[in-house]
């Protein structure tokens, strides 16, 4: 079946893909190597071999700039928003998928419409609301915004719950479990593979979010990782040593996590995409 991968065109494409792979790895090595060099060393002898490698750049970023605080900020927002969106979307999806009631179609469509409303468009009213609630410059605002974009998740999970055999539910109810316990202890765990693949997609999205934190988190101590990085990469040559170090620190831990869990993550995304 696969032997015609040996056809010339397939071979050429494979070579290009592997070159690209090599290119990406080389970039990472190049960044890491340069993050160990003092600024003047990089600027005067950009492509030469350096003799005085040091970890000063990292020390500066971690100690003086409190790198881990920004990392923690990003992480707190991710964790908060992820938990909120899982709670909201799984309960709504269970309500819509499992029960039968009037106007169900309306509510299904109602939750689907959110796909058409990217947060950028409604950011002005959202900003005004959060200002009224005194939530500007708090993580709560950003978490609420990210955690409420549940359209896609509700869509995926509603179908899942609707297709679960009803006998499971009945058995639980006969055993005396209440509605909510049935959901929390039996139905939700059954959905966990779907919840997982959906969470991966959501997490990738939130981690890279730039726009919302830029507008809502104005004080320095609340800023997220991308905004810290930008401080150093903006003036390229003036702060290039810090830019290298902060890029490595912000990227490498995530990449290691990704590589460790890559098969689960890629499988989750592939499945989420099929159903979406």
């Amino acid at each position, binding site marked *: 079946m696969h032997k015609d991968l040996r056809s010339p065109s397939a071979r050429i494409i494979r070579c290009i893909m592997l070159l690209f792979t090599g290119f*990406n790895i080389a970039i990472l090595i190049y960044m890491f190597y340069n993050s160990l060099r003092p600024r003047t060393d990089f600027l005067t002898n950009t492509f030469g071999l350096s003799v005085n490698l040091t970890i000063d750049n990292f020390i500066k970023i971690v100690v003086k700039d409190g790198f881990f605080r920004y990392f923690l900020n990003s992480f707190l927002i991710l964790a908060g928003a992820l938990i909120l969106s899982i709670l909201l*979307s799984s*309960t709504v999806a269970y309500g819509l998928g499992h029960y039968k009631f009037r106007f169900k179609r309306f509510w299904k469509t109602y939750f689907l419409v959110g796909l058409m409303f990217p947060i*950028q468009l409604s950011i002005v*009213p959202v900003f005004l609301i959060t200002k009224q609630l005194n939530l500007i410059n708090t993580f709560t605002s950003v978490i609420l915004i990210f955690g409420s974009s549940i359209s896609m998740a509700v869509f995926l999970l509603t179908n899942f719950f609707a297709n679960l055999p009803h006998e499971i539910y009945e058995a639980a109810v006969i055993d005396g479990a209440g509605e*909510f316990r049935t959901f929390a202890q039996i139905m939700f765990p059954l959905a966990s593979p779907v919840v997982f693949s959906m969470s991966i997609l959501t997490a990738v999205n939130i981690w890279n979010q730039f726009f919302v934190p830029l507008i809502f988190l104005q004080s320095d101590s609340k800023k997220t990782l991308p905004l810290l*990085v930008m401080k150093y990469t903006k003036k390229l040559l003036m702060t290039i040593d810090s830019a290298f170090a902060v890029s490595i620190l912000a990227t490498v831990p995530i990449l290691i996590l990704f590589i460790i869990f890559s098969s689960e993550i890629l499988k989750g995304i592939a499945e989420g995409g099929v159903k*979406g």
Partner: protein
Amino acid sequence: MITFIKRRPYVLFLVPGIILYTALIIYPIFSAMQLSLYEWNGIGPKTFVWIRNYVELFTDDFLMSQFTNALGNSLKLFALTVFIQTPLQIILAYMVYSKMKNHRLAQVTIFAPQFISTPIIVFIFRLLLDDNVGVVNNLFRMIGLDAFAKPWLGVPELGIFFMYLMITWGGIGVGMTFLIGAMNMVSVDGLEAAYIEGAGFWTRLMKVILPQIRATIINLILIAYIYAMTMFDFSYVLGGNTGGVGGSIDVMALFFYRIAFGDSNPVGGKISSNSIGMGTTIACVLFVLIFAISLTQILYMSKGEEDR
């Protein structure tokens, strides 16, 4: 009250989601429509001006030229995705799906930049393309092609293409992975039949697989359209508030941001006293542009649901 809920247990499951979703996703759209009918900067007096903001947006030369420029750039990004990125993703996905040698390694490394945040991606490409310290120029100089060495990112005409290169480098993996997922759902029987009939490697992709993953491809194109209309970070990181020299990499979302939030508002005067009014006006126009296209997606998705 308690018996009401006892009889309708779904209410408890729906209410928290409905409240937050309505407050932060649905209500703001209507609120934006309403605000776009006022002249207001968020603090001062709020005057009802009916559709004058829309009239101003489409008649004021300064605003209109920014609008058409940004819309043009957003559409360019969309076109580049449809004609370059999507076909590329299909080929990459097919190679991985066919389990070429080292396909795991390739898939992981192609996907990995997804986890690198925008400012770092921009930084990496600056390191490659910068005039003095850039790798590309130094390679050119090394092999004696000094004439080709340029401050690449400073050429306004090329700006949007380099930006697109960065977007693609960072984001190509997700669509590719979606497509692999879709390809894995294609039944093997049809492929084997085609193989026995003598269909080659690429013929099987074109004749058997593509027709069956059409839904995923259409979905990707719609996502790309919404992305092009709302992409903000690359333009902002690369070109700041104004979207590069002469707005060469300005896009719709950045234009909107500049009017609504731009602190060093270059427009000044009339516009900055109407930042909320004009900002929401642009948002509403953008909303119509997205609505028209994505309505088809919603209809498509709920139709798929009926079929089940």
